[in-house]
């Protein structure tokens, strides 16, 4: 029996975040256990006096040569971050075989903000910034990445706020299962913007210090930026030597509750997790680790914890949020955390939920606050929940070698 049949495999991954450039740097710093959230240096904002964020520690000028892009005219920061992560994810991919149907699906939510907030007055009043006008469309960064890498097949962009990249990964996997594509680059990119920083600040859900997900005294989230991509391939084209793990399940649900808040009962979160677990054919008892959405906001962490309780009852697997390392990178967070989840699988590590001290009163769940090295991890559930009650969970499974 062919055990690979109709499965979807991850065969490459790439990342850039406040933790650094590339898989290696990100892994080292997750193990080191020190947050890279700090002073805002590159984004020009008055809020840099009072807030911190997980910025990628490079200016656009420094990112351009790293991206290897020839023509950076009118480029957005999100597109630059995206190209860098996408190149790493596809370093083993042979794009020359035109018989392999290759696509790209990216998630982004702030995409074009960085250029608009700098140049809107110019767009309206003079011709000095015309080259940036077309970067206002959400498909822009996806098209730039596709062009740079030479991906000519299906391309699309998802914008479901903070679950965008997780939905992009899920959609890519479904298209492979439906035999519409043989392989697809999936993930997302978002750059830190004044609009998002002010928006979350106005909603009063930004913690001026590094966030404390799932803590009783949590005060909100920190924003971040970054990009991550996975190359996923069908069993027919995935080469054994490139296979990192299987993407075995995915679930999507909506709270149908509020435009910015999650349903306080955690039902939507639970449904997304259950769908992902059932799709994998696993029993919830078999789940080893959850990389939680865990933003550090009052609303998210309680809903998510209640959702976890609903799905797992008394057998709650180890879980942690890695957001205190990177900040909440919004549209791309699902991709960054998919990479972290896969690193957990590969290295048998549970990354720590930094800053956790006291459990919430309402629920009996406690995240891992220290790095766990002692257990074998066969599967990881990765959660992404967003504005509008959009919930998505992904399940990554170790492949037997």
């Amino acid at each position, binding site marked *: 029996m062919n055990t690979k049949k109709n499965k979807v495999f991850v065969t490459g991954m790439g990342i850039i975040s406040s933790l650094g450039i590339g898989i290696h740097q990100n892994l080292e710093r997750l193990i080191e256990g020190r947050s890279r959230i700090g002073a805002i240096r590159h984004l020009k904002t008055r809020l840099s006096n009072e807030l911190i964020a997980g910025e990628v520690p490079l200016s656009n000028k420094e990112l351009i040569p790293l991206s290897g892009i020839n023509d950076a005219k009118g480029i957005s920061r999100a597109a630059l971050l995206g190209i860098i992560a996408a190149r790493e994810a596809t370093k083993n991919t042979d794009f020359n075989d035109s018989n392999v149907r290759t696509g790209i699906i990216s998630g982004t939510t702030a995409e074009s903000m960085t250029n608009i907030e700098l140049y809107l007055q110019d767009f309206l009043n003079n011709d000095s910034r015309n080259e940036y006008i077309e970067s206002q469309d959400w498909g822009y960064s*996806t098209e730039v990445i596709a062009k740079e890498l030479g991906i000519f097949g299906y391309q699309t962009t998802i914008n479901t706020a903070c679950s965008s990249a997780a939905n992009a990964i899920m959609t890519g996997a479904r298209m492979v299962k439906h035999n519409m594509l043989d392989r697809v680059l999936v993930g997302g990119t978002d750059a830190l913007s004044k609009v998002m920083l002010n928006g979350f600040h*106005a909603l009063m859900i930004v913690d001026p210090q590094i966030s404390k997900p799932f803590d009783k005294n949590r005060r909100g989230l920190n924003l971040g930026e970054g990009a991550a991509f996975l190359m996923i391939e069908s069993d027919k084209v995935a080469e054994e030597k490139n296979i990192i793990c299987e993407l075995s399940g995915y679930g999507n649900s909506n709270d*149908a509750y509020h435009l910015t808040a999650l349903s306080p009962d955690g039902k939507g979160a639970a449904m997304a997790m259950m769908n992902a677990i059932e799709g994998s054919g696993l029993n919830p008892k078999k789940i080893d680790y959850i990389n939680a959405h865990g933003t550090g906001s009052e609303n998210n962490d309680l809903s998510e914890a209640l959702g976890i309780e609903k799905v797992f009852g008394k057998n709650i697997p180890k879980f942690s949020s890695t957001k205190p390392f990177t900040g909440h990178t919004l549209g791309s967070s699902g991709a960054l955390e998919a990479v972290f989840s896969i690193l957990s699988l590969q290295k048998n590590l549970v990354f720590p939920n930094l800053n956790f001290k006291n459990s919430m009163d309402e629920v009996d769940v406690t995240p891992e606050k220290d790095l766990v090295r002692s257990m074998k991890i066969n599967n990881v559930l990765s959660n992404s929940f967003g504005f509008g009650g959009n919930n998505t969970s992904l399940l990554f499974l170790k492949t037997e070698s």
Partner: protein
Amino acid sequence: MIYINGLANISPQPAFNNKEFLTDIRQYKTNMLQCIEPDYSHFFHPNALRRIGRVLKLGWAGAKSCLDDAGIQTPDTICVGTGKGCFKNTHVFLNSVIENDEKFVPPSPFIQSAHGSIASQIAIQTGCKNYNMTYSHRAFSFESALIDAMMLLSEGKYKNVLVGGVDEIEEIQFRTFDRIGHFKNPETNNLSLFTEKSKGTIAGEGSAFFFLENHPTEKTYAGIRSVHTFSNPKGRIEIEKQIENFLNHENLTLKDLDLVILGINGDSDFDWIYYDLMKSIFSENNHAYYKHLCGEYHTSSAFALWLATKILHLQEVPEIIQLKNNVTKPVRNILIYNHYRDMNHSLILLTDPKE
């Protein structure tokens, strides 16, 4: 094949009530066509009416009317395509950030600035807690939502999908893109869009929704056989190959197409692609166009899908959309071919559900 078992279309033309079919054509003397909006008090509580932004109103009014047409209260799943989404609220919020120098900025426009809020709003109003998705990729936005709907129906987990294409044109976007020549100067008349050969097009907007199932009902209007997108083709030959392969895959030939609906938008920089195809592979087919009625926008193919659906259902091709006036009845197969600035190309194939 999937079946269109309910539909609604809010557009710059009076098409909303689903009774008339392009009998009363609106002429505009502006390059920014806006929807003829329904009375929203039928759709929203008075408090909500004040709070909710225009694009969310367009989205929910379109979705609700489609569900009413299908006789359904809560769809199983929701897929929305929107190129510009809630961009207007982003601009409103950004202006307020700038004006207030990032101090004490009111959050309400920010709350409604996420693109996903169009689909979330529908989920909240209908209590639909299942699959909910928003695609935002220029002129692939609606097509991606349709492709997703076809996957959902074949997966079998859900029974039906509410799919919509929603976009709003507003002053700031119009002025910005006008600066780089996307729209005609000076202003033109939408109904004479194709008589003058000049650069640029006219802007438009719309909200069209379709209730899709994988079986026909008494209500069935049309069947969607296939949807395909492709990017940045290298000239006419590759486009022809894409179209022929697409039809081959459905065991059809060009001769089987009773009508080809083209996305001609009056822009001499890009319309040559359509005119070349009309002389080459489509030379034997009947042609129709539609952007003089709704303007150019990222999800205009949703207007075209509504148009094709009505044609199949009523077996009537309105004169206002005919390019070659010799459509022979009956109309069984319709191909919609649209492209946005030669970057995003899409094909949608519809069939008479009785075939």
